[in-house]
């Protein structure tokens, strides 16, 4: 087996979509001045609810929809806590992560009566989209065609978000809120509404990310299956400077590392080290962030 071949990039594209979707959600929140550490929990909520929806409706569309719905509900809890009750977003985000870890495990027992993981071999996952003509082109066809619909949704979402932020009036105002909330408020912009809007949209995106995680690559749910992807997405957000196109780039990097770490398992390297790869790369990537994401000493100072 080769270390690098095109199938590595195929799997990288597949791996990238949860990170990309969640990172876009993180970017939206960052753009209105909320540091969303709860991405991890939002993805987990989406992943679990998608499986639950799939189990009960046996309809893949409704499954994804239920994943999104759940994620939105959770993001609303996060929104109320941070925007309305003025919680520290970091604390609230961490709490959301734990809440979802606990709730999904609890619900796994309560609904499916299993511990650790739920898997049903009869359950259908997300279909693969075959793009006519394109798929026949060698290499490129394999790269572009044959992914789950959510992979395409992820990339389209990035472009749509770009247009929204930089071409529409609402997007312009949303940017204004994040840049200078005091000024935005003095102009009478609806700061709170825009913030809630961003938080809810990030819920939608994280719900999709979760659905791709539990229905796209495999068709199962395991406890804590996000394994830090929410945080990797957060770094992708920062590395991409909360710019949709930049985020595509940074997410691709992390997707590639994900794929590479799986590929490396085929070589005689201890699995522990290959599994470390995405995290190590992410930490290294943070050295290039520099001043982005504010001075954390100042930003994190209130622990309440």
């Amino acid at each position, binding site marked *: 087996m080769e270390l690098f071949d095109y199938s590595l990039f195929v799997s990288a594209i597949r791996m990238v979509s949860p990170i990309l979707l969640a990172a876009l959600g993180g970017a939206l929140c960052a753009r209105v001045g909320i540091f969303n550490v709860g991405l991890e929990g939002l993805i987990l909520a989406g992943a679990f609810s998608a499986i639950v929806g799939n189990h009960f409706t046996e309809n893949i569309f409704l499954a994804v929809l239920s994943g999104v719905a759940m994620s939105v509900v959770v993001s609303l809890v996060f929104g109320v806590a941070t925007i309305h009750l003025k919680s520290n977003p970091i604390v609230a985000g961490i709490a959301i992560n734990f809440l979802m870890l606990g709730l999904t495990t609890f619900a796994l027992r309560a609904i499916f009566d299993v511990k650790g993981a739920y898997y049903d071999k009869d359950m259908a996952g997300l279909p693969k989209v075959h793009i006519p003509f394109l798929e026949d082109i060698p290499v490129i066809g394999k790269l572009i065609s044959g992914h789950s619909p959510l992979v395409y949704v992820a990339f389209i979402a990035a472009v749509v978000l770009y247009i929204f932020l930089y071409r529409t*009036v*609402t*997007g*312009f105002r949303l940017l204004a809120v994040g840049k*200078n909330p005091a*000024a935005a408020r003095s*102009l009478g912009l609806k700061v709170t509404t825009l913030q809630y809007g961003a938080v809810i949209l990030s819920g939608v995106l994280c719900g999709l990310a979760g659905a791709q995680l539990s229905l796209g690559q495999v068709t199962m749910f395991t406890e804590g299956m996000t394994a830090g992807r929410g945080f990797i997405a957060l770094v992708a957000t920062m590395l991409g400077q909360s710019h949709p196109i930049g985020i595509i780039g940074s997410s691709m990097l992390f997707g590639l590392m994900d794929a590479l770490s799986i590929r490396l398992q085929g070589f005689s390297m201890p699995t522990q080290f290959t599994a470390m790869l995405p995290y190590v790369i992410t930490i290294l990537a943070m050295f290039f962030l520099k001043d982005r994401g504010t001075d954390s000493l100042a930003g994190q100072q209130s622990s309440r």
Partner: protein
Amino acid sequence: MANLLEMKGMSKKYGEFLANDGVSISVGKGEVLAIVGENGAGKTTLMKMLYGLEQPSSGQILLNGKPVTFSGPLDAIANGIGMVHQHFMLFHDFSVAENIVIGHEPKKFGFFKRNDAVRSVNQIAEQFRINVSPTKKAGDCSVGEQQRIEILKVLYQGADIIILDEPTAVLTPFEVDELLKTIRFLADQGKSIILITHKLREVMKVADRVTVLRNGKVTGSVSKTETTSDQLAQMMVGRKLQKLNERDNLDGDTLLKIKGITMASKGEKPLLDKVSLTVRHGEILGVAGVSGNGQSELIQAISGLSLVNEGRILLKGNDLTDQPVEARRAAGLSHIPEDRYLWGAAKDATVEETGLMGSQRKPEYNNRSFIQKRAFRSTVKEWINRFEIKASSLEEKSGNLSGGNLQKLIVARELAFKTPFLIAAEPTRGVDIGAMEYIHDALIEKRNSGDGILLVSSELSEILALSDRIIVLYEGKIVGELERKDANEERLSVLMAGGIENVPTKKTSETS
């Protein structure tokens, strides 16, 4: 002239504190009304009620004779009232045009028509003869330009009544003249202007009528033609200002010597450019300049909060250039910071903790790394008595003190170090007159005892009242130096604008 706007019997209570007490004002169409008063007189509160940012406890606002209530700025804007804040409300990453149209963007199907925005801005700029470049980033504009953006924004929103809150504080004298011309022109076009300021010279130049506030009450409302600066000053202060302590002439030795310090980020214009100066024992050296011309950097360079790229800093002959803050303080430096909330205190720390800063390792208060709280507490209590600091207890959070009281606490703390050298940066910014007199007295007293003070202030009157010698900073350079007896507002103004005096100048600073 018929009154376009009238505010009648406006009162505003914050808890026990009466910020406005039955204040009434009125403005006619095309009229410039100046509202003057010292810090804390209630000018800002009054304008906040007019702009819908605060709700009056009692009183009535009449617009064209009809009573109106504003629950927020949007209501005020919709009724043709616009406000240019003292601290600009700009988005630095956005273009000038974007900053002007925000909130009322030209659009089609929800898409932002940026080209239309530029066109409308050009049009309105032409109409009111206000010069801006619409496609430039707001952050790249000069302070004067930023203010013009703010004024255009208000005009774009369709304001007929424009409130300008302390508009000249950040401007160079030249820019001030430009602004005053603009104000006059707008008034001639039929706009009504409310100018909030404490600078009487500008009032006498541009206003039609003047309303004076003191302690939340109106102490006078006169037409400009019937009054003088002196009369206005009398109404503002309400009493003769205390005379400052006598100053003895001291010819001290060199205390602080700064040789050619430069501070610059890579590839950018230096923030401090080869600055050299000397402070002697028993001398107050005033640093004048429009804010943002290197004053903050100079303070940070001397106190050790930022390091310089080149040059040396010597205190009593000790080279402090590469020393950390702690070593500089130990070498005999204390520092009243320019921003008391950012540098001078922690809002959530108690009064005692805020007071302890800098003394935590002093042997008087430290026994084998345990803080001697009892000894320190009696010291703080002494400060509180001496400076009449109003704090309910030593456990009170510093953030709950009023600005003036917190400033007095900081001044007391820094004076208590009894260091030979003190940096006093904006020592009286935003404090009431009583606290100001206290602080000025304390500074003069320290000077008379033979210590040296570097006084940085954006208030020319403060500089002129306290300094023995004055240097002027412009774009990071020292552009002039005046002895106390030669200094006056006019000469300083010219220097602050970067102009070279016509009189053959002596060398701007000592070469070393």
